[in-house]
């Protein structure tokens, strides 16, 4: 099976504290550490496990800049066979659809039976996989937590509300977005990454892909982020005062607003 996995380099949510910069319009990126998006990592592990069982190869691909190459290498250290970096100044500022458009041009070139992405990334939108599928006219399933490969089709389980699992049968080729917990990704240490340090990763720009710059990047984006801000939440907890009854009353009001009741 030829599998393409779309990955993204994101700020690590576990090892960063996010603060606004002094201008107040972006994150303070000085001290941020980045790594591969956690959901994408599960997707790569799943791809590698599938290929271990039925043969084939795993290609990881990302749209980014030079620094994004490090996540491709890390996934290759994990076991992906090939990596492709799609990079061009014209791609900057792309919205989800822009990214999907860029990925689509490359995805069409290979004969991929299966295209995977993580269910969501740092922006929490979970959009690129579904868009890519629609552009390619492939069937799509999101939040996949189980994959069973058959002959020309696959059985896929989706995580839905209440902890239940929705089972679907998909014809290949198809696109799936992968939910965390589908497997236990293997560990990749510094040593593994050093081993793939000199493997060639082709870089392709807008011309190589034959993309019209106007359809991607800032120009082509229909959804744009204007700024970052931190909603005013005050310092620490809001301490509720008063008699127990009064406190309970206030608490219930707040719980209702937050969906706790």
């Amino acid at each position, binding site marked *: 099976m030829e599998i393409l996995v779309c990955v993204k380099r994101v700020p690590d949510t576990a*090892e960063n504290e996010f603060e606004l910069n002094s201008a107040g319009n972006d994150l303070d990126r000085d001290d941020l550490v980045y790594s591969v998006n956690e959901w994408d990592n599960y997707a790569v592990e799943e791809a590698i496990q599938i290929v271990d069982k039925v043969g084939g190869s795993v290609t990881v691909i990302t749209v980014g800049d030079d620094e994004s190459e490090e996540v491709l290498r890390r996934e290759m250290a994990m076991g992906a066979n090939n990596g492709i970096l799609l990079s061009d100044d014209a791609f900057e500022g792309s919205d989800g659809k822009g990214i999907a458009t860029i990925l689509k041009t490359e995805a069409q070139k290979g004969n991929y039976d299966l295209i995977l992405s993580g269910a969501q990334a740092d922006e929490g939108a979970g959009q690129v996989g579904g868009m890519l599928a629609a552009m390619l006219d492939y069937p799509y399933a999101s939040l996949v937590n189980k994959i069973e490969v058959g002959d020309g089709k696959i059985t896929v389980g989706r995580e839905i509300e209440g902890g239940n699992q929705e089972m679907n049968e998909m014809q290949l080729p198809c696109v799936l977005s992968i939910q965390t917990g589908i497997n236990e990704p293997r560990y990749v240490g510094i040593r593994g990454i050093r081993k793939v340090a000199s493997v060639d990763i082709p870089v392709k720009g807008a011309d190589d892909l034959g993309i019209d710059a106007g359809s991607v990047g800032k120009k082509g984006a229909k959804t744009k982020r204007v700024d970052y801000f931190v909603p005013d939440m005050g310092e620490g907890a809001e301490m509720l005062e008063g008699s127990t009854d009064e406190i309970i009353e206030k608490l219930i009001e707040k719980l209702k607003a937050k969906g706790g009741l």
Partner: protein
Amino acid sequence: MTSIIGPASFKFFGIFPAAILSFVLPVIGIGLFAYIMVRRIAPLVRANPDNRFDHIGLRVKNLIFVWLGQMRQPRYMLAGVLHICIFAGFLILSIRSTSLVIIGLSDGFVLPGFGGFLGDIYNFIKDYAATIVLIACIIAAVRRGIFKPGRYAVPEKYGKDHTSEAVFVLGIISTLMISESLFEASELAYEFQHTGQEHFLAPLSLVWIFRGIFASAPQNVLQGLHIFTYFVHDLTFFFFLCFLPLGKHFHVITSVFNVFFMRVQKGKIKPVMHGVSDDKLDDLESFGVKKLEDFTWKHMLDFYSCADCGRCSDHCPANAAGRPLSPRFITIKARDLIFKNYPLSGEIYKSNLLVEDIYTEDEIWSCTTCGACEEECPLGIEYIDKMVDLRRGMVDEGMVPQSLQKSLKALEKRGNPYGKMEKKRADWTKDKEFKASWQIKDLAKDKADTLYFVDSITSYDDDMQDIARRTSIILKKAGIDFGILGKKEKDSGNEVLRFGEEMLYQDLKDQNIETITQSGVKQIVTADPHAYNALKNDYANLPPVKHISQVVAQKIGTGELDLKPCQNPEKVYVYHDPCYLGRHNGIYEDPRQALDAIDGLTRVELEKSRDRSFCCGGGGLMLFYEPEEETRMGVLRVNMAAEAGATVIVTACPFCLVNIQDAIKVAGKEGEMEALDFTKLIEQHLF
């Protein structure tokens, strides 16, 4: 007929010379033994290299004290004394055994130099030796067979019980003693009957007793007995020789080598591959032990040398906590695998991955590297390096539990297992109250003689940051000019190394060494025994490293630090030896001296103290991974303290503090027991 006919001259049924048997038996015996030994050496030849010819002086010292002096045996008194008897007996009787073999070919043979007076003294000693060995064997057999002490038990998952093998060998040894004595006694009784001459024999020795019993036996009985017991001894002796390499009694042969080659430097982990320097590590195909042959030859020798005594597992805290680890069976399973893959005849089998074959992942991750096992083993068998090597293999294959992956990733990106930002590493200095009185030098900007290496847990854990502050105050009051590395400090990597992530450890180590060297400090002090161990034993080219307890003890000695009388005389204090301060680095007395310098402080000792201290279960990354266990090690330790009558457990290690604090709550002993860090106790008592 004048004297008894010895086996050299005897003829069976008057025709068949017994000497032929005396010749054939040894030839077959030695030949078979040689063949078995060659087969047994085969895996060692295929094993990885090991550097065991360094520190010859220390090795000879070990040979004298641990092997010959049997100094670890009395740690279990009854079994120890029994073994010392049997061991000493073996050594003494080796001379007799050798001469006996030749006696079968040449009557009355005596080894050169053992004629005359020396020979008589020897005979006297050896007769008692044989007697004592027999008595020891009988007591041992009763103990093993009837009383069945707990540490020999074989849990179901590890297979059948080993008692029959043990008792069988005791039977063999007893047979050797009895047959040798009877052989001699029969001759002496015959002599006496014949010539009336009575040799002086060691009174109450076995041979003395036998001679007494058979004093008036008919001469043909004595003759028959003489020949019979000779060949019983000869056969048993060569049988035993060939039996030794087949099981746990291989240690009889390998022990002298195993002890000579045993660990001479504590607290240090072996390199990934002996002979491959750090900068060449990238060239290695594979890291760690994945298959049997990846072990070094000394580790293989360890597997052969195990006497199945169970002392290691008896002291293993993981075992006591009900984790799936029993060090004894790490060794026995590996030994059995060697026996299976390298059979005495037939083809050698290809090894599978150990962690799927004989070990489980949890078993290997269960070890806290406390070193209690290695401290007990009378044969110098090592475990820590093996565990680390197995972990290196698992890490290389990506088999790391998810919760551990997170902390390893955090260490890689942020230099600490919590994933917190580097620039917050020195935030403990910014505590309002503390900052008002004490300013701490940052060695990136200032110079100082001494580096206070704080390490990750003390820097980032809200509760543990207190240790850093108090250590600073102690150092200041002791007049020591020091600074910290602040945000440039990376985790010391003690745990990272022991968890098998070699390259990450190298990375952290290189960064730390560079920063420390640049700072120009002349000595390093730390309050974290894990950091102490790494900086002192695993790193190289650093200024001397001290633990805060050593500094305190020294400064009390010179009078530079003065301690107030005990502020809580009603409390009963007990000092818990941290593994990385005590067992791995031999620092037992300094903290105790410091505590005892506080007038009126009531201090008790735990039964398991000093080199028998019981691990709290700490060990850095253990905070992020939990193997299956029945109880927590910390809880077991807290209960021990309660039994000793203590109300305060004093620890000199932040991991011990975390674990014991937690354990007190889990054990439901809040209010009855408290955990107190050494630095807090001392700082509270400073003027």
